[in-house]
């Protein structure tokens, strides 16, 4: 199946669901569970909270299914909802949750429980993952969508509701910061080897 055909197929999932085909929604969740979950984690949401946020994203998708039109590319649409959920998480966590549900906050900041991360190249990935979480949220969002999820600049701009120029700037800065961290790491390793 060619890329184009696959893309068209993806776009039909939500209209099918809106028509009552529940299997289409299951397929959608299975097909996009990794990109969505990966985005949430790489944007710095603690894993305990990430599970809830993952559910929230697909719950929102379910409720917004009728508003999706197959003329729109699905992935940026989905990432708009995901990015919104992540931003909302940080916003709410920083303000309301502190007061109203301190227990939940403590839980959401708990250490990572059993992430199913493939271990191939895990060391370098862990290193970059760690540094990615140190980036400002805007840079993190752009780097994950453009570099990890391979969305185009235009799709990323649409998904994040960000001007194209800002996407380019954030991408450049984010990539440069990660490159710098990698360079420092290489230098350190070389010195240690000597």
């Amino acid at each position: 199946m060619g890329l184009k055909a696959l893309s068209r197929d993806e776009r039909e999932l939500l209209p099918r669901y809106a028509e009552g085909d529940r299997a289409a929604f299951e397929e959608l969740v299975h097909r996009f569970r990794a990109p969505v979950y990966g985005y949430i984690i790489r944007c710095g949401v603690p894993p305990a909270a990430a599970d809830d946020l993952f559910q929230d994203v697909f719950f929102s998708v379910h409720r917004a299914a009728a508003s999706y039109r197959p003329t729109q590319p699905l992935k940026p649409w989905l990432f708009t909802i995901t990015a919104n959920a992540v931003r909302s998480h940080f916003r709410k966590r920083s303000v309301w949750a502190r007061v109203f549900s301190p227990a939940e906050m403590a839980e959401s900041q708990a250490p990572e429980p059993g992430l199913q991360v493939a271990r191939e190249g895990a060391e370098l990935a862990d290193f970059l993952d760690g540094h990615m979480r140190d980036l400002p949220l805007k840079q993190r969002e752009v780097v994950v969508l453009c570099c990890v999820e391979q969305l185009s600049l235009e799709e990323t701009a649409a998904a994040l509701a960000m001007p194209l120029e800002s996407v380019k700037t954030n991408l450049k800065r984010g990539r440069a910061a990660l490159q710098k961290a990698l360079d420092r790491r290489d230098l350190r390793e070389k010195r240690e080897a000597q």
Partner: protein
Amino acid sequence: MKSIDDILRDMPRHTPSASVVAETLQRVAEDPGAAPLEERRVLAMVREQRVFARWTLAYAFGLTAAFVGFVLWHTGHGGLGDKPRVLDGSAARVLTSAAGASRSANTIANVRRYLEAGELPPVPLVQTDAIVDYFQYTDVDSEGSAPVRVGMSSMPAPWDPSKKLVRLGVVGRERSWGEHTPTSLAIAVDAAAVNKSGVTRDLARSALGALVATLGEQDTIAIMDVGRSGQMVLTSTNGGKHELINEALAVLFATQRERRPLSSEAVQRAYQVARSTSGFGRVGHVLLVGAGGMRLDTQDLSERLVSYVRNGVRTSMLTLGETTVDVQLAELVGDDVHADLRELAEVREQFLDPMMRTMLPAARNVDVQLLASKGRVHPLSEASLPQLGAGQVMTALYEVEGEPELTVRIGFQRLETGRAERAEVAVADIPESATDDDKVAAAAAAFAFALQSARPSEAYAYLDGAETLLAGTRLPAIADERDRRMELSRMVGQAREIICSPGLDSPSCATR
């Protein structure tokens, strides 16, 4: 050695556990709001162009804000604050913001309808900024010659007294209605659809009658029935001839006709009329009025109409009762007014006021931000509008940690010259008090967060916070059901009732 892009592209996938996926699917299957899918589809179709593009944007409000202290600002005319640095127009960022003038009223109307039907609104329809924006804030100074002015106030954050909740407001310069942009209005009415029900006919008659009353001699108006191959009901006429125009409307609404699809030819003719009578400072404006289903019959037509819009003809839409609008029509309307009326009480708020703001702008592409030297400002909502009407206010809320050096950054485009201007003003001192307006703004944000919450316990906590804040404000001496603060209080109560309904599991409800 692999490049950074290669490494990032090949990063291992994070996947949720199977139980999380299963719980997600179960939660969706058990959603009590899943049943009226068709109803949501109708709303979504009407709103889709507005909602989707703006989900993640935090935008502007139309408040009349009360500010304890002012950082008055304007360019080139001096002011109470320091004279700002006016940046080069090229520095202005391109705004992707696209909030329609009636966005707040539309958002609240949708939220209200859902709550009154005993249902929580779908999350995408709940826009924090639009909800905060809707509630009126009372003391703003829009006098003076500056196109826009900025006000600022703060209060200790209700959730953490060590932090501040800062409210910024931008108000458009007041102008008299006589200064409104001369308009060449072409009203295209699907009369057969509108006249099919007495309710929609009365809504249309009331809304258009109110609009006609605002027109002056500098305007022109043409009316046509787009359900009948573009039959002209009133050829282009001086807008000051109210009696003649109202007679034409009476004829239009008096006749029952067989329902036909929107005539492409007729819709196009409305644009031709608006275009041909515009120019020399007069703006072409098409107002599409319909009920039931509004669809353009060909893609080709849609493309031709878009070319009119690109050439400066504005499009607004008035839909009456339960109406579905196709994507092409929604695209034509874009950032302009789309009023969706269900009740007569909504005519002024949802239709007339936004239309008047469109015709009487103060500045374009207005946005405001609060910046801190040490990154200790957290926006709860930000403000940006493609067009700020005279006297219209937009508001942004921020949480500020500690005592950082704050800067207000504002950008806008002048109407007269089209020049983009941007300025930054350092804030020497934030006036601090907990005014009623500050509390209402915080309560409105909490209400929006509650409606966006996935967990009932969390939603309930936000509603609790909103109620506490509202309880600390003075309500009108005489109870007025239409007072917006009372409306907020009522909606908070309705949301609580729904969240605590027997079908939903909420420990917070049980312990209350």
